[in-house]
């Protein structure tokens, strides 16, 4: 190997091995100056708050059309400048189906999720990660108010097929950092 090759290798090694910076002590004198590096890594973080229960008690006439209830929630996210996050909704029916039941008969419902204000929500598929939602809050306490909402909708067909009585179910919303 020629000396030029050795020189090139040494140069590459020196650049590769050089630390970014490191703490330095001061020298003795009438002034003395030292320095320290500061490194902080914030992990991707999300937090869902403000979730409430949803109760519907439609009268007989209401069974002729969709019955929808919504709940305002707050999602904190520190991922990307848009504060993105995803939502995975799961029901407690078979295979995470969105259903309520009276113990024997399930009634299906649909779920939509909306980030920000205005516009329509995005339909969620049970057990499936959504696409990115944006406009998450920038603090855990949601001092700016609710950032998002979700709707639960029962169709006339589903309700009319059910028997009179009380139906219950659990909807689980899993919020994850977006990309």
């Amino acid at each position, binding site marked *: 190997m020629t000396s030029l090759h050795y020189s090139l290798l040494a140069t590459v090694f020196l650049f590769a091995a050089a630390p*970014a*910076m*490191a*703490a*330095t*002590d*001061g*020298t*003795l*004198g*009438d*002034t*003395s*100056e*030292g*320095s*320290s*590096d*500061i*490194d*902080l*890594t*914030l*992990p*991707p*973080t999300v937090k869902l708050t403000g979730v409430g229960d949803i109760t519907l008690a439609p009268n007989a006439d209401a069974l002729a059309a969709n019955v929808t209830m919504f709940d305002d929630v707050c999602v*904190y996210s*520190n*991922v*990307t*400048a848009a*504060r993105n996050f995803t939502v995975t909704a799961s029901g407690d029916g078979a295979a995470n189906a969105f259903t309520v039941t009276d113990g024997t008969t399930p009634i299906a419902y649909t779920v939509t999720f909306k980030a920000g204000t205005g516009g329509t929500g995005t339909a969620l598929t049970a057990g499936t990660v959504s696409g990115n939602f944006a406009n998450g809050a*920038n*603090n*855990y306490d949601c001092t700016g108010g609710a950032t998002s909402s979700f709707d639960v909708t029962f169709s006339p067909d589903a309700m009319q097929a059910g028997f009179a009585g009380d139906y219950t179910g659990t909807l689980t919303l899993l919020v994850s*950092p977006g990309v």
Partner: protein
Amino acid sequence: MMPRRTKSVLWALLMAPLLSTGSARADVQIINLSDLATAPSANLPGQITLRDEVCVRVTPGQTSYRARIDGRDGQGFTLAPDSGSERLPFRVAWDTGSGTAEERSDPGDMGVFAVSSHGCATDAWLAAVEVRITRDDLQAGLAGPYHGGLVIEISAP
């Protein structure tokens, strides 16, 4: 007749020893600095405090010193993200261990401090610098690495 320039040089040479022995020289030194690093969990706690204990060496008999702390990149007390432009602010405190810790949100003179009662080397006394990041600022910051630095200058008061 002596030229004026020669006369000035001779005057300076004669006066220099007198001026230098007019008062005892007060030397200082800051040592034992370390880098500060943290990677908190996703469940962000309240305020994060990063603390580095250092030693301040002073001339024997000297009982106080002045501390000045600046950000390393001239951007105040802030950390720069690897990506994006939103810097993360922090506050800095200087603690001599005597129960007083001056805290500042902007670079500059931290004040004059009595040497602590805790020795850490020959003629050197313990002190600590603390970097404090508030809960609100941590939550407002975007995920990812942030970098910055402190420059600490110690001098005779």
